[in-house]
C-alpha cells in the first residue's frame, strides 16, 4: 500500500535559493570579456539584439527567471501540482541550456562577434553552471515529492539510446543528398527517398529485394518452425536409445563459429545446382535455425506429463498427443519460434553475400542496404539507405517487442512459464 506521504518542506524551501543561483550562473559569461572593440555591456547587448535566432540563447535565461518566480510561489504555498510543474520547468531549463551550449559558438559567430573578442568558454561556463544546477534542482524537487530520482538518469539514458534511431528516421525524410551533413536536423523534408527506393530500380532493386526477403522469410519460417517443434517434442517427451547422444551432438555443433563452414555450404549448394537461388537461402537459414530447439524444449518440459499419460490411457498415439495436446497448449512458444525464424533472413547479410555473390536480383534487403553504403554509392544513396532501413526496421522491431519475454528465457536457459 502506498502511503500518501507529505512533502519534504525544507527541500521545497531550498528551491528558490537554487533557482537564484541558476539565474546568477547565467550572468557568469558577462563577468569577464576580453574587450577588443567595445565595452562589455556593448557586446552583450549587440549579441542579444543581433539575430532573431538568438531566442535560444535567451531561453535559458527566461526559463531560469520563471523557475525562480515559481519556486518562490511554491515555497510560500507548497503543493504537489506546483512541484510537478517546477520539475518540468527545470527540465526544460536544462534542455535549453544544453541546446544553447551546443549552438553558442555558431550563434556568436553568426551575430558578428569574433570569438577572439568574446570568449566562448566564458559563455559555456555559465551554461554549464546553469545545466548542472538545474539538474540538482530537479533532483531536489523529486526528493521533495518522494518520487524516485532515477527519472533523471533514465531520461538521459533514454535520449542517448534513442538519438541514433531518431537520427535514422529523420534522415530518411531528408531532402538534401549526401552522406554527412554538418547539422543534425535536415533543412527540408521529403518523401522522395521512399518513393525513389521503389521507382528507381535499375541499380538497386529494392522492391524486388523486399519481396525476396519476404518469400525467403515465409518459407524459412514454416520449415524451421515445424522442424524445431518436432525436435523439441521428440527430445522433451519421447525416450529412445541414443537420445542423449543426439542432444550432445547438437550442443557441440552449436559451438562452431557459424560462418566457418559457409564456403563449404556454398559448394554443397553449387554441387546440387542451387547456388545463387532463393531456395538455397531458405535451406541455409532452416539448417542454421533447426538447432535452436532448446527454448521450445524447455517450454514443453513444463507441460505436465500427466496430460500425456491420461491421453495414452484413452488410446491416443504419440503423434496424436503431439498434435492435439502439446501444440495447442504451447501457442506462445510456437509464436516465438515462428517469429525468430521469420526475422533471421531480414537481418543476415553474411550468408547472403557468400551465396549470392554478385547476383543483384536475388539479394535480400540486408545485403542490398549494405551495398548502398559502399564508398561509390554512399553519397547518392545514404538517405535512401535510411529510408530502406526504416522500412525493414519497423516490422522487425514490432515482432521483436512481441517476443522479448521469450528472448530472455532463451538466453538464461530456464524454463518459461506459459
Amino acid at each position, binding site marked *: 500500500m502506498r502511503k500518501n506521504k507529505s512533502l519534504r518542506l525544507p527541500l521545497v524551501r531550498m528551491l528558490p535559493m537554487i533557482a537564484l543561483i541558476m539565474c546568477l550562473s547565467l550572468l557568469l559569461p558577462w563577468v569577464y570579456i576580453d574587450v577588443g572593440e567595445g565595452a562589455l555591456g556593448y557586446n552583450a547587448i549587440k549579441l542579444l539584439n543581433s539575430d532573431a535566432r538568438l531566442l535560444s540563447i535567451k531561453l535559458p535565461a527566461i526559463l531560469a527567471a520563471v523557475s525562480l518566480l515559481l519556486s518562490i510561489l511554491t515555497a510560500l504555498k507548497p503543493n504537489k501540482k506546483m512541484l510537478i510543474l517546477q520539475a518540468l520547468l527545470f527540465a526544460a531549463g536544462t534542455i535549453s541550456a544544453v541546446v544553447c551550449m*551546443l549552438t*553558442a*559558438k555558431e550563434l556568436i559567430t553568426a551575430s558578428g562577434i569574433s570569438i577572439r573578442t568574446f570568449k566562448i568558454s566564458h559563455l559555456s561556463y555559465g551554461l554549464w553552471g546553469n545545466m548542472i544546477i538545474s539538474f540538482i534542482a530537479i533532483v531536489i524537487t523529486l526528493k521533495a515529492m518522494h518520487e524516485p530520482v*532515477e527519472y533523471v*538518469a*533514465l531520461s538521459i539514458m*533514454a535520449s542517448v*539510446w*534513442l538519438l*541514433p*534511431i531518431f*537520427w*535514422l528516421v529523420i534522415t530518411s525524410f531528408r531532402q538534401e543528398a549526401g*552522406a*554527412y551533413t*554538418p547539422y543534425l536536423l535536415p533543412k527540408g523534408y521529403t518523401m522522395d527517398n521512399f518513393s525513389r527506393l521503389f521507382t528507381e530500380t535499375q541499380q538497386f532493386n529494392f522492391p524486388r529485394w523486399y519481396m525476396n526477403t519476404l518469400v525467403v522469410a515465409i518459407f524459412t519460417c514454416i520449415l524451421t518452425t515445424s522442424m524445431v517443434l*518436432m*525436435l523439441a517434442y*521428440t527430445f522433451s517427451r*519421447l*525416450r529412445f536409445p*541414443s537420445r542423449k547422444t543426439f542432444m550432445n551432438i547438437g*550442443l557441440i*555443433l552449436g559451438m*562452431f*563459429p557459424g560462418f*566457418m*563452414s559457409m*564456403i563449404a*555450404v556454398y*559448394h*554443397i549448394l553449387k*554441387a546440387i545446382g542451387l547456388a545463387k537461388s532463393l531456395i538455397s537461402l531458405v*535451406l541455409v537459414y*532452416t*539448417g*542454421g535455425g*533447426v538447432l535452436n530447439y532448446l527454448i521450445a524444449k*524447455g517450454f514443453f*518440459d513444463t507441460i505436465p506429463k500427466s496430460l500425456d499419460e491420461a491421453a495414452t490411457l484413452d488410446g491416443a498415439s*504419440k503423434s496424436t498427443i*503431439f498434435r492435439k495436446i502439446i501444440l495447442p497448449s504451447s501457442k506462445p512458444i510456437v509464436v516465438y519460434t515462428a517469429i525468430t525464424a521469420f526475422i533471421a533472413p*531480414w537481418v543476415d547479410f*553474411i550468408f547472403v*553475400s*557468400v551465396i549470392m555473390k554478385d547476383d543483384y536480383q536475388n539479394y535480400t534487403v540486408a545485403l542490398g*542496404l*549494405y551495398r548502398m*553504403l559502399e564508398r561509390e554509392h554512399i553519397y547518392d544513396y*545514404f538517405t535512401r*539507405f*535510411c529510408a530502406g532501413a526504416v522500412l*525493414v526496421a519497423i516490422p522487425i522491431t514490432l515482432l*521483436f*517487442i512481441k517476443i*522479448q519475454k521469450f528472448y530472455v528465457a532463451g*538466453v*538464461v*536457459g530456464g*524454463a518459461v512459464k506459459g
Partner: protein
Amino acid sequence: MPKLIPAGRDRQSFAGIREIINIFKRGDFATRSSFLIMGFGCIKRKQYIKGLLYLIIQVAFIAYMLGFANQYLSKLSTLGTEAMRREWSEARQIFVRTPGDNSMLILLFSVMSILLIIAFIFIWRANIRSCYKAQQYEKLGKPQPTFKAEIKTLLNERFHITMLTVPSLMIVAFTILPIIFMILIAFTNFDANHQPPGKLFTWVGFKNFTDVFWSDPLISNTFGKILGWTLIWAVFATFTNYFFGMILAIMINKKGVRLKKMWRTIFVITIAVPQFVSLMLMSQILHDQGPLNMLLQKWGFIESNIPFLTDITYARITVIIVNIWVGIPYTMLITSGILMNIPADLYESASIDGASPARMFFSITLPYMLFVTTPYLITSFVGNINNFNVIYLLTKGGPLVTDYYQAGKTDLLVTWLYKLTVDKQNYSLASTIGIFVFVICASLSLVVYNMSGSVKREEEFQ
C-alpha cells in the same frame, strides 16, 4: 525423485556389435543371407514391401558407390594428381581444356560418401534386426506384422524416427557435412595459390597449426595479438554490459518508478532494430567526416576531427563503447526478471540496519546476481568472442597495420576468419582458426554446462 536413464543405454555401440554377432549365430539361413542380400529374410517371410525396400536401398547404394563415389574416394588420399590443363591446339587453333581432378570436389564428395556409408550401415543393421524379428515371429507362430501396421508404429512407438528424420537430414547436409569438410580443410593447403581446378591442393598434416603457433612468424604474431585483443575485448564487452545493464534494470525496477513498461520498451527498441542497421548507422555517425565530428567541431568542443574508427586506441575504445550502447538493453531485459526474484526481506532488514543503497547493491544484489547469472555471463563471454557484427560493421577490423597478416587492430578471431575466407580465400588458415575458436568456446561452454542445474536435473521438472 530424479528418474535416471538406464546406464546400459549409453553404451550403444558395443551392445550393437554384440547384438549383430548374436543374430548371426542364432539366425537361420534366410536371416544370415540378409547379411549379404538385404531384405532377403523379410521377403522369404512374406514381408514383401519391406524386403523389397531394403533390397532397393542396397542396389541403389551399390550403384552409387560404384558409379559415383568410387572416383572420388579413390583419390581421397592424394586429393587429385592431374590439374586441369589448357593447351594450345595447333590443329584447331584454340585452347583445349583437358579436364583434370578437382581437389575440392574430391574432398566434398568423399565426406558426403563417407556419411552415406555410415547411414547405410545403420540401415543394414535395421535390416538384420527386422529379418531376425521376422524369424522369431515365425518360430513363435505369431502372424507377421503387415507393412501397414509397421508404418503405423512410426506414429506411436517409433514416433521419434518420424520426427527426427527430416531435421537430421537438414542438420547433416547444412551443418555436419560442412563442418567436417572445413575441419579437414585445416589439414590441407587450400589457399589462394591452390585453387582447383587450375591448381590442386593436398594434405599437409599439421602444418597450418604449427604456422599459427610458431613456425610462421607473421601469422603466429598476428594470431597471438588478435587472440589477446579478442580476450581483452570479450572481458570488457561482457563486464561493462553486465554491470551497466544491471544498474539500468535496477533503476527501472525500483519501487515507485512509474511507466516501467515505457522505459523498458524505449531500450528494447534499440535492440529490436536490426543490428546491421543500427551498427552501420553508428559507423556513419562516428566516421571521420561524420555528423558527430562535424557537430563537435561546430560546437567548438574540438579543433580537428577525432579519428573514432581510424586510430588504433580510439577505435578500440569506440567499439567497446558502442557495444555498451548495443548490449545494455539485452542485459537489462535478462536481469529484470531475476532482480525481481531477490527476496524482498533481505533489503528490508538491510535498510533497518541502515545500509546505504550502494552497500545494498554490493552486499545483496551483486552477489545474488553473480550467483544466478554466472552461466549467462560465460555464455555472453563466448558470444562476445564471436561478436562478428559489432566489429565488422563498425571498423571492418581496421585500422589495418602491416605487421598483421591480413588483419587490423580491432579484428577478432572470427572477423579475421571471415576476411581470410571471403576476401583472401585462404581457407586452410581460416579453418585452423575456426577450430581454435571452437576449442575456446567449447571448453567455456562445457563449464557452463556442468554448472547449470537445469541440465543436470532435467528429469526432475517433469
